């Protein structure tokens, strides 16, 4: 699917970023083509979360370019970037714990364009995650880990999404729950929405990812088709500790 459909949805070039004096990203370049699902694999602490937080504007890049569609998003505030349709589902879910499931979802559609279609969007998310419909009046803090993750993804889908960025959706969940969640992510992918997903574990990306990047020490160490990377046990062992 890659390369079809013209210019990339997202193009990151030579991105540098970090926290204060500590540089975490040292020149990351990657792109997402229309309809593609891209997985960035890397060990903990090598910059996966920083990468997504920099793209969505929560952290200011120190150098490099981020282009979303035809827009240069450098210097834009996170809310403006979200308004363009670049949706970031953050690590740890960042739910509004004292708000109900329904209110959390409604906040996902905060931008005027999305709010105008609140009903349809809600229906779409409930179709994907029927559990959220059952729980809609509950406070978000009372949800189980799996439900929290579904709500976090669902809230992201409530927006005017043109690209969905997911930060370690499997983190802290039981294997059965991860399987279910990845099935849902597969459905989102099938709908044609481009996805940029970061994960520490390579176990569930085969069949989901169109291309994979390996992020190591703040730079892209390798890029390729998932089959090629997964067929290289030495590489997986070295970078990801998986035999």
């Amino acid at each position, binding site marked *: 699917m890659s390369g079809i459909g013209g210019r990339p949805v997202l193009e990151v070039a030579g991105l540098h970023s970090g926290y204060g004096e500590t540089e975490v990203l040292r020149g990351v370049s990657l792109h997402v083509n229309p309809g593609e699902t891209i997985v960035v694999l890397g060990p903990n602490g090598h910059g996966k979360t920083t990468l997504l937080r920099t793209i*969505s*504007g*929560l952290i200011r890049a120190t150098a490099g370019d981020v282009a979303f569609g035809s827009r240069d998003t450098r210097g834009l*505030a*996170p*809310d*403006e970037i*979200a*308004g363009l349709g670049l*949706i*970031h589902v*953050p690590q740890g879910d*960042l*739910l*509004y*714990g*004292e*708000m109900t499931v329904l*209110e959390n979802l*409604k*906040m*996902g559609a*905060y*931008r005027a364009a*999305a*709010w105008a279609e609140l009903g349809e969007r809600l229906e779409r998310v409930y179709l994907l995650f029927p559990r959220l419909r059952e729980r809609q009046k509950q406070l978000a803090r009372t949800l189980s880990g799996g439900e929290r993750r579904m709500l976090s993804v669902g*809230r992201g889908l409530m*927006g005017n999404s043109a690209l969905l960025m997911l930060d370690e959706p499997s983190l802290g969940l039981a294997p059965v729950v991860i399987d279910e969640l990845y099935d849902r992510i597969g459905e989102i992918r099938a709908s044609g929405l481009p996805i940029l997903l970061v994960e520490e574990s390579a176990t569930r990306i085969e069949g989901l990812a169109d291309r994979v990047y390996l992020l190591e020490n703040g730079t892209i160490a390798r890029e390729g088709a998932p089959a090629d990377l997964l067929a290289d046990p030495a590489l997986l062992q070295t970078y990801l500790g998986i035999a």
Partner: protein
Amino acid sequence: MSQISLVIYQGLVLGAIYALMALAFTLVYGALRFLNLSLGALFTLGAYVAFVISGQLGLPAIAGIVGAFVLVGLAGVGVYQIAVRPLVGRPGWEIASIISTLGVGIVIQQLIQLVWGPRNQAMPEIVSGNLRVGDVLVIQYQRVAVVLVSLVVMTALWFFLTRSRHGLAIRAVAQNRDAAYLNGASVNRIFMLVMALGSGLAAVAGVLLSTVLISLNPTVGLSYALRGLVVTIFGGLGSITGTLAAAFIIGLFEAFVSVYLGEGWKLPALFLFLIVVLVIRPGGLAGVSAEERT
């Protein structure tokens, strides 16, 4: 028996006013995590705006209340732009903002004194007339109106915060700023909205209090800002339900002290009460810890 009814009557009126004042503090604290100390002066400014509209121009009381809410709400946006926005996000800005808003508050109070003078002004009542119940209790329609206005404002606020798009965003920013950003909410604009809303609430509290006292002067806001703070901290900073409960408990407590011990004991008793409460429940009534709120 009749003295108890007097305590309840006075307590409810005070509670209705304190509730608005404390909601002003709590809304701003919830979203921005700092105590906006300009609210005392904005409380006074609200009373003077209503004094001009209803007392001097002779328009109906409702026009004075709405006018105070709107104009002081705009003044609150000004306070934000001048005293808060330049500090937001810098190290220690929550503490710095307490001091800068206190400073702006002093300037506002002095401006009020320059414009209207230091003397007491006569504030017209919203409605006049009494209803005598038994031999001690005389219910003034004026005070009933104060409680009603406060309830209407609080109900409207509740609908705004739970049903409207921007109200939802205010609560979202209070609970998780990064998430609100990622949902496309301009945190800066939400901060401005919160400052406007908080200032408007303080203004309405100021109008209501001055109609009860039937007079106003430039320093009236100080002691009531202090009571608003006591209620806010007692209720559990940032918690709306805790604040409402605290406002009426403090109102009743103050009425009780002034009926049974005398006026002079009100403030000492109030602070003794606060100290005891904070020793027992350091998080206040609602007892929300900082970790839970974020």
